[in-house]
């Protein structure tokens, strides 16, 4: 019996890009927390693009690839988390 490779299991390129942006976003989120400096304004537009690409990639193929799904989730989760943190910074007095 031979080994079969399935073309649909390959990651779509925009899914990979989406994951890459999400991964970079995650690294930047860690840097932001550790250095207490705000890089989120830099990051937010990319997160939107990454989230959008991830979303599109999910609908491009009938079989969802892991990294596309993860990329989409990462971007969306980081976006929502950033918005929440910015909101809570706003309600705590004097925090920058």
């Amino acid at each position, binding site marked *: 019996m*031979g080994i079969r490779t399935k073309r649909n299991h390959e990651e779509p390129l925009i899914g990979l890009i989406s994951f890459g942006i999400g991964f970079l976003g995650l690294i930047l989120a860690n840097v932001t927390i550790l250095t207490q400096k705000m890089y989120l304004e830099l990051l937010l537009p990319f997160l939107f693009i990454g989230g959008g690409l991830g979303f599109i990639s999910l609908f491009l193929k009938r079989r969802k690839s892991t990294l596309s799904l993860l990329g989409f989730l990462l971007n969306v989760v980081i976006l929502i988390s950033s918005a929440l*943190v910015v909101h809570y910074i706003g309600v705590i007095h*004097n925090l920058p």
Partner: protein
Amino acid sequence: MMTLDNEFRKKLELYKEGKLSQAEEEELEQDLEKFEVYQDFLDEEFEPDMEEQGLSEEKKLKLINLGRRKAVIKAALLGSVLLLSILPAGTLLTYIFYGYGEEQNMANRFLDVASDTVMVTEPNVQVDRNKFHEQVGLFTLSANLDMWKQVGTEQTRIGDKGLNLWFSNLENVDHNYLSDSFSSSQKVKDLKIHHPNVSPFPSSEKEWQRLSQLPEGTVAEAYVSFDKLYDPNDVENLLGNIDHKTLWYAIDTGYEKEQKDKNGVVVTPIGYPVQNGIENPKKMTTEEFHQILKELTENEEWSEKIAKSRDLHLKERLAYVNKNGIKTYGIVMTGPTKEILKLKDNKHVKGLELGEVELWQWE
């Protein structure tokens, strides 16, 4: 199956020769389109076996290694995502923990308690609410409060308090004073304002003497003890026509006569500033003081740690104030030294202690 196959072949022959009716022709074309879609799907779904492709052993091995490498990279990326998510997720949870509840969130409540505790338990010391330095870490909130004291017309920074919360538990408080004189003037044991019924009442002779030796052109901070309890609103009338600024009222809360609790521990004096705030001070009322005392009672554990006190007895003191009203037994004031010296002849002034002295800063 065979009949179906033969029928289809026959139809194809007739289609080729153009002998089918219009309807039959359309039906056959639709079937052919369906087959194309099936074929595309199968082509896309299954590539031919490696053996069918006639791949060499070496190529097969390469493909297997490539697949293995891809799997390892995918697992490593997933692992990295999980690891990198710990800090942001923890920080987000921390922000939600401290910030939940909008204006009445835990962080704000803690900062209010910290600033009010300093204002109420340290005579003539206030915290600048506009210059808090807070930092939210992983399950922690640390804050640094600058403390200010007024002598003459100027506010002088005397030090800071570093506070560290772990969840809602106040772990440690660092009291940093810029000089030893500031540090000793804020010591709980060194009470400077005395209740009129303290026995024996400490003599102020030396303090009056020191005050009289100070040259003109200086301003001083003075801790004044009265001969009896007064309503804070009557204090200005008692002091007569001397040029001064009243800064802080010492309030009788039932422990000041003995100055110690049942266990013999010195009890921190409690009072409130005449004006609340550093940059935009607002006159503080007795009602506001009462409200602050209530809030500190609700957060007594934090207050005691911030105030360097083993026990502030806030519940008992609040009950005493509720029963007896808000009465003052002394004040902290500032003014030109020669003006303060005039208090020696004031019959309402029972004692005085000198605080900080500065060069002339007065209106």
